[in-house]
């Protein structure tokens, strides 16, 4: 509750609430006060004109009667009690009205004045606002309003303002406290979960309240992020383990070959053969690491700036042509079923490399059992490219696994690959936002890439 963010939040809320309430009531005061003043002025001026008419008709005596009449019936007029009148001789002595004498500092003339005056029979002065007039006979006439009424209105308003401010402040404090408590408790939950995960409980997730609110959505996003991280960590662990195996084993053999080659008692032919085998192992390690590097770069999207329109049909024809001779030598034919105008946005070299990996695999695994077919066509708004062989295929349960790094269907078969070819194809597919699917070619394997078509 006393943590900085909380108190700052409440203080900011409080200040904003006080400011807006003050502003609202201040505006009421300013506009209502102005209206009241203007109205009082209009009434006083109208009265002054009315009394001047009375004077014109009945002279000073008639005016004095009119004033006395007005003072006698205060209840009939709402502002009656606040009204002040004074009819004085040219010298300032009272003829009629409820003021004791003509104020020394009020010269009759146009204009609105505020004065300290003594009422008839009153000890203390009252503040009045009013206007004065010199009549034709030299008498002076003053009509005004007691300001006390206005002051009372002000006091009422200020009281209302104070109450409103107090209530607003209390409400602000209350809601602020509730709000921050609510927010902080949810944040604390997320914080606790994050700490547990940092502490090593990697399977922990942020709890959901099931309210479907922003916090649940945040928790869902965080959990999805944690799932992704967990998958990546799992991947990394697997890759590290495989790396250890696929790099260390050939390096170990390389070392042993070189060691044997150093043996001066061995036959020169034998030593030369050892060195050649060591070179072969070095090439294996290099090939594995380049393939890994390539996969990581593709996964990181390096080269996505080199995307260009690629005709998948032309790619199929080119690759079929490139592999035709080599496939024929292995007892397989390259077939090509390319529809025209199947164009996608892609990286020309990486796509060609992916297709080449698929054909290499087909040549290795299908061992001349029927033709290898490359297909490019449109299918339901998508561009589809597939490579199909008639080899042993991949069992359904293994299809997801063979797309990951270092996974070989049957490691004991030892076809020389490190299990990175399909991983690169999968990475290239992901880079092109293409779906990759392995299916049964009955018999054999069909690898299908479904590309989104550029709009």
């Amino acid at each position, binding site marked *: 509750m006393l943590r900085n963010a909380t108190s700052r939040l409440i203080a900011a809320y409080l200040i904003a609430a006080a400011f807006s309430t003050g502003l609202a009531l201040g505006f009421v005061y300013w506009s209502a006060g102005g209206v009241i003043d203007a109205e009082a002025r209009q009434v006083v001026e109208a009265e002054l004109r009315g009394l001047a008419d009375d004077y014109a008709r009945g002279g000073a005596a008639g005016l004095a009667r009119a004033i006395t009449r007005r003072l006698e019936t205060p209840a009939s007029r709402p502002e009656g009690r606040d009204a002040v009148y004074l009819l004085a001789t040219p010298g300032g002595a009272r003829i009629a009205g409820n003021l004791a004498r003509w104020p020394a500092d009020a010269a009759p003339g146009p204009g609105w004045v505020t004065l300290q005056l003594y009422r008839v029979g009153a000890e203390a002065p009252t503040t009045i606002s009013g206007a004065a007039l010199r009549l034709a006979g030299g008498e002076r006439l003053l009509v005004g309003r007691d300001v006390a009424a206005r002051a009372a209105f002000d006091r009422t308003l200020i009281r209302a303002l104070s109450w409103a401010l107090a209530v607003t402040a209390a409400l602000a404090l209350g809601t602020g406290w509730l709000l921050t408590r609510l927010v902080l408790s949810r944040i604390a939950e997320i914080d606790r979960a994050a700490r547990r995960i940092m502490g090593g409980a990697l399977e922990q997730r942020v709890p959901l309240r099931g309210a479907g609110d922003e916090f649940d959505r945040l928790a869902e996003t965080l959990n999805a992020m944690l799932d992704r991280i967990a998958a990546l960590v799992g991947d990394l662990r697997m890759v590290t383990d495989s790396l250890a195996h696929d790099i260390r084993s050939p390096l170990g053999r390389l070392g042993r070959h070189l060691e044997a080659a150093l043996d001066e008692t061995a036959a020169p032919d034998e030593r030369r053969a050892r060195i050649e085998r060591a070179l072969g192992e070095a090439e294996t390690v290099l090939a594995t690491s380049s393939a890994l590097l390539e996969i990581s770069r593709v996964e990181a999207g390096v*080269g996505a700036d080199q995307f260009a329109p690629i005709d998948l049909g032309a790619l199929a024809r080119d690759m079929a042509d490139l592999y035709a001779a*080599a496939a024929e030598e292995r007892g397989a034919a390259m077939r090509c079923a390319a529809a025209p105008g199947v164009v996608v946005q892609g990286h020309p070299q990486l796509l060609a490399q992916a297709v080449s990996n698929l054909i290499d695999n087909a040549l290795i695994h299908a061992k001349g059992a029927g033709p290898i077919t490359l297909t490019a066509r449109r299918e339901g708004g998508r561009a589809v490219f597939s490579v199909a062989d008639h080899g042993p295929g991949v069992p359904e349960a293994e299809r997801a696994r063979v797309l990951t790094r270092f996974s070989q269907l049957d490691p004991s078969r030892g076809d020389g690959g490190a299990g990175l070819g399909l991983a690169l194809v999968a990475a290239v597919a992901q880079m092109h936002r293409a779906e990759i699917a392995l299916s049964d070619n009955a018999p054999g394997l069909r690898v299908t890439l479904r590309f989104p078509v550029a709009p």
Partner: protein
Amino acid sequence: MTRRILIVEDDAETRAYLAKGLGEAGYLVETTGSGREGLYLATGGGFDALLLDRMLPDLDGLSLLKSARAAGVAAPAILLTAMSATDERVRGLRAGADDYLVKPFAFAELEARLEAVLRRPADAAPASETALVCGPLTLDLIAREAVRGDRRVPLQPREFQMLEFLMRRQGRVVTRTMLLEGVWDYRFDPKTNVIDVHISRLRRKIDAEGEAPLIRTVRGAGYMMSAGA
């Protein structure tokens, strides 16, 4: 004429290996491990080709090349890199490189490519040529026909392109990757020996029984076309 090569490579061992190999191949070699010094040397002029490492501690190879090209250095340049070729190559070519080699590379590959970029100006005027000749073999570029002696050799379009590529580089080593790049425009390493099979078919077509072979295999490097093999 002895050709001068500038090698800018920060790894001392690779530098010494390249200098030794190229020195033995008859080039006059100058080396440095610093990109800035490399730029200074390159702009000083007098080199027939530049071999630049892509990653240098002070000034990387790409920037070096861009600056050198901006300063009017026209000598062909080959970038050497530990990064994959598929996308870095495009960046290298944009920066003004003539070729791009991914480490580790076979020395023969470097030599073949260096020869290729050094000869490039000679290849730049093939438009006027209507035929290529290699001993008894004539390649008619207009009719797109090959004739060996008085025998017409039937060729597929790709075979014709391969033969043209080889014949334009007679007496020089052409590696498998150079062929894959030059004829198919692909820059990756297929696991399958696709190029070797294509070459052996081409050979069977142009060399009949008892005829002298025109395409020679250069062990560990690639192929060479020459009439006097």
